[in-house]
Every structure is written in structure tokens, then in C-alpha cells.
């Protein structure tokens, strides 16, 4: 790769070349060589195969599977008890009642009844 840049008013040609494990930068007649830490011998980028599981955090309720919100049992600012029904999600012809694991207050509801949601989507924020 060649770049034309101005350094202190003078035009310089910078040449950058990547070779096995090294990056060579040529400025005019001077050449610098660096070790490329990101270099992988086979040149295969590693894909993330392990998608992290969507666990419920204490502050938000996420959709455990993709589906449709059938019922919202709480309102914003409403206090709720442990094991209280929060939302119902219909997915794969199953009804999934999502209940609270602790007591608290509903901060905000991000979905509406009848809305389609993706797996892991935040449905309700709690406090």
C-alpha cells in the first residue's frame, strides 16, 4: 500500500508492506520493520462459536426464546413480589410465563402486547 502525505511541507511517499509476521514501513529511503502481533500463520480468522447464554440480570428481563408477547401483567412504577408474573411470551406453540426472581419495582416496559421479540431482547427493566 502506498500513501502520499505531506510532512512539514515536504511530500513523502510511504510504503506499507505486510509480510509473514512483519509490517514494513518505507518512508523515502528509510525502512522500518515491526513485528505483527495480530499475525496468524494460517490466516484464518477465529469465529466466535460460543454465543453467551442470555441469563437474566437482576435489572432486566430478557426474552428466553424468540416469540410474541401475549400479556404484560405489570405497569411501570408498579411494585412486584418475588415469583410474580411479569410477562407472558408465546413461542413455539408454548406459553412462557416469566416471573420475577426477587421483589422490586418496574422501571420501564420496552414491549407491547402482540409484539414479536427476539431471543435475548430486553422486555422489562426493573429496579
Amino acid at each position, binding site marked *: 500500500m502506498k500513501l502520499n502525505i505531506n510532512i512539514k511541507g515536504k511530500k513523502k511517499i510511504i510504503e506499507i508492506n505486510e509480510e509473514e509476521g512483519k509490517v514494513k514501513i518505507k518512508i523515502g529511503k528509510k525502512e522500518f520493520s515491526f513485528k505483527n502481533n495480530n499475525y496468524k500463520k494460517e490466516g484464518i480468522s477465529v469465529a466466535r462459536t460460543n454465543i453467551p447464554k442470555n441469563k437474566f440480570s437482576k435489572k432486566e428481563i430478557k426474552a428466553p426464546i424468540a416469540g410474541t408477547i401475549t*400479556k404484560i401483567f405489570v405497569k411501570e412504577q408498579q411494585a412486584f413480589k418475588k415469583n410474580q408474573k411479569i410477562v407472558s411470551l408465546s413461542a*413455539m*406453540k*408454548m*406459553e*412462557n410465563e*416469566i*416471573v*420475577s*426472581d426477587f421483589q422490586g419495582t418496574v422501571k420501564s416496559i420496552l414491549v407491547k402486547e402482540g409484539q414479536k421479540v427476539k431471543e435475548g431482547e430486553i422486555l422489562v427493566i426493573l429496579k
Partner: protein
Amino acid sequence: MLLKKYKSVNSTSTIAKKMDYEPWTVIWAEEQTLGRGQKSNGWFSPKGGLYFSIVLPKSTIEDLQTLTILASFVTAKIIKENFKIEPFIKLPNDIFINQKKVGGILTENIIGQDVKFSIMGIGLDTNIEKFPKELENIATSLKIETGKQVDNEKILKQIVQEIKNQLKIISE
């Protein structure tokens, strides 16, 4: 199998959800006043039909999807074996005879940090002789199709036992 029989309940799955029952407890009712189908649809549940809910053992959601399909398959198998008719399974959870719905399965999961427990409700139109006008073209019963009286308890026990058997086979 612990079988609890009621004359009339709102919904067998509602009863099963409220109590802390052991897995494989079966709640059976002669009629349901608020029988449920999927997405808050009702399930017509007069006397004569077979309505029961099974408290399932702890499982993951992926397993439960398989279990719903398994229950449809088992229900269709028991119908076929007892009445020599060929039911059609509309995957994953409905059973049809002659293009009319005869049974349905509704699995309900209670989810907190993970799946706390699951209830599988099965409704089968066994001895229903007449359906209301709005259902008569889309629903049927085993009695209408075969002309024979169905022994609800026998069918219930066969279905639950066969679900257990099949579950054992696929978990091995």
C-alpha cells in the same frame, strides 16, 4: 403417576401451576370453565371431553419443544391404536381427524432465572356429541367420528404412560 381428579375447574393447568406438585402428577377434570389454548385462545371444554395437565420434570426449553411434539405423537398413536382411525398431527401441537381438530397440547413454562417448572395441558374431544355452531365445521370428537363411547380414564393413563416411555427412549 399421581392422578388428581376434579369435577369442574377453571383450567387443569392453572390448578397444576398453583400447587407445588411432584413431576408426573396429573390433574384431570371432567370439565373446564376457562380451558385454554395457545395465545389466550379458549379451549371448549364441556363434560364428556378429556382434559388433563401433567406436571413435567425439570427440563430446558429445547427439551420442552421436543416434549410438546412427543405428546402430539403419543396422543395420535393412542387414538390410532384404540380406534383404528388415522389422525393427522399438525405440528407441533394439534391433532386432527378428517380435517377437524380433535385435540391440542399446550405446554406452559414458568421461567425465572431458568425454567422453574412446566405444565403440559392436553385436551382431547372424546365424548363430546355436539359442538356449538362456530366450532362444528372445525372441531370434532372421537365419539362423532367412531360412534363409540370413550373410556376417558383408560385413554388418559395410556397417554401419560406412553409419554413417559417415549421420553425414556429419546433420553437414552
